[in-house]
């Protein structure tokens, strides 16, 4: 009897192991994963997360800020490490004195600002944790212009719902051509409530020094309550829109067009 039950135990261990394993192949998970209908079902969760977090966070809950001693000695740079191309290289050589940030689209007062002009505006400094969608985190200090200030100056029109951030880097390895949006061109978008959050800024300094090329020189977005891919680097243009479905892949960002959630609060 004992022998029999022990054999049963061994058999069930193997069976249990098989059941736990082989998820996709045995259970057909991969076929499900390829089905557009099933993906639409899964996508519902993003809406649940967004509305729950909007409810919990309201407009104002602040991301945790840290001490100078918490700053990562080496802050991993990810995505594009250098946009390259003749145009960007020239900006690097010139120390970005001719870099312009354009704010246009659904605004009453479109504007174009140099980095020096941005540096003269009121600034904010914050030490925050950068959470990559891959799972790692690094802590850095950011100084920049609160985005809310720029949007107020540009007088956002009532029909605007999102700000789209157009960047100088092309993750497909090709430099941008003539300002035209090629499919690999990095871009991001935010709802206005996140744009107006006090910690959301266009940063020009990192850890007390001008942003380096790998981390997004001369301007990058910081939107502290969302994941790393929302923190667009090399920002050239902020376009206010009522919807982003006609821009690039239509999902509101480079990584969003590649299947990642538009709302990256989780």
């Amino acid at each position, binding site marked *: 009897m004992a022998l029999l039950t022990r054999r049963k135990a061994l058999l069930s*261990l193997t069976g249990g192991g098989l059941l736990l394993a082989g998820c996709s192949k045995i259970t057909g998970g*991969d076929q499900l994963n390829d089905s557009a209908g099933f993906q639409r079902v899964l996508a519902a969760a993003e809406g649940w997360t967004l509305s729950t*977090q909007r409810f919990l966070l309201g407009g104002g809950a602040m991301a945790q800020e840290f001490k100078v001693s*918490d700053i990562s000695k080496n802050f991993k740079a990810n995505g594009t490490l250098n946009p390259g191309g003749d145009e960007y290289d020239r900006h690097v050589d010139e120390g970005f004195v001719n870099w312009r940030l354009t704010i246009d689209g659904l605004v009453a007062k479109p504007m174009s600002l140099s980095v020096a002009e941005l540096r003269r505006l009121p600034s904010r400094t914050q030490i925050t944790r950068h959470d990559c969608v891959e799972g790692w985190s690094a802590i850095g200090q950011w100084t920049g212009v609160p985005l809310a200030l720029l949007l107020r100056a540009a007088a956002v029109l009532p029909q605007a719902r999102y700000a789209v951030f157009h960047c100088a880097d092309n993750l497909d390895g090709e430099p941008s051509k003539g300002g035209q949006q090629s499919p690999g061109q990095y871009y991001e978008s935010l709802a206005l409530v996140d744009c107006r959050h006090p910690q959301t800024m266009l940063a020009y300094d990192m850890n007390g020094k001008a942003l380096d090329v790998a981390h997004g020189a001369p301007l990058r977005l910081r939107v502290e309550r969302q994941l790393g891919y929302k923190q667009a680097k090399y920002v050239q243009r902020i376009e206010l829109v009522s919807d982003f479905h006609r821009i690039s892949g239509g999902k509101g960002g480079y990584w969003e067009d590649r299947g990642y959630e538009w709302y990256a609060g989780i």
Partner: protein
Amino acid sequence: MAVEAEDAMPMPAPVRRVVVYRHTFIVRLTHWINAVCIFVLVGSGLNIFNAHPQLYWGQKGDEFDTPFLALQSIDKADASVGGQTIVGPLHLNTTGFLGASKQGGELTARAWPDWLTIPGPTDLADARHWHFFFAWILVANGVAYLVWSLGIRHIQRDIWPTLADLKAIPRSILDHLRLKHPSGEAALRYNVLQRLAYLGLLLMVCGMVLTGLSMSPGFGAFAPWLVQVFGGRQSARAIHFFCAGAIVMFIVVHLVEVVLAGPFNEIRSMITGRYTLPKEH
């Protein structure tokens, strides 16, 4: 008198199957929803883990920090790829399983092998969609279960161990080691190790949800204190991983016990609710 004498004589107990209604509908329903959710969450969690197969302690951790656990691939001298598991100071060769495993017949750099992950191929975006959808279902299911079973005192009566239960722990351990299962009426009552295991599972699932939320930068802004409780975002990620390991171990033991106690009867009781009492020895 003969008739009276016969009546007074002890008769052998009739061999009769005693079937009882053991598991209520809510327990059965939430059990199977839970089973599907945990299955998908473990598989998709391992796929997500593969995007950065290192664990750190504290708030931060990236390629410049030292992980206490890592599943990595190494390039060997003969240009083939090897798998290595690093646990603190230990460097273990885990080629074929962790760090490097066969994918389409070829040894490929990959933290967890593709036969363990959902979806099979490395796909962080899709794995996140699976993970968060089923996490929501798990939470809704778990809340329904907790409210209902606290309300009808299922947890207090059947799962929370009594003092007498706790005193019987050594005896229960012995019984389990001997693969001795209770029979008759005694089989209806959860023994103390069962109670502790189910309580532990409840605790682990709560731990999974809270550590999972602590990794969310949005939720972190809502409850930074919770992230602190776990020692930071990266420690929350590590604890999330260890709780998952504990849950997988629970499931393995759970399945072994189901088979040992009579898989047909046990599984039927979790589907129809009806359970045949094991015969007295």
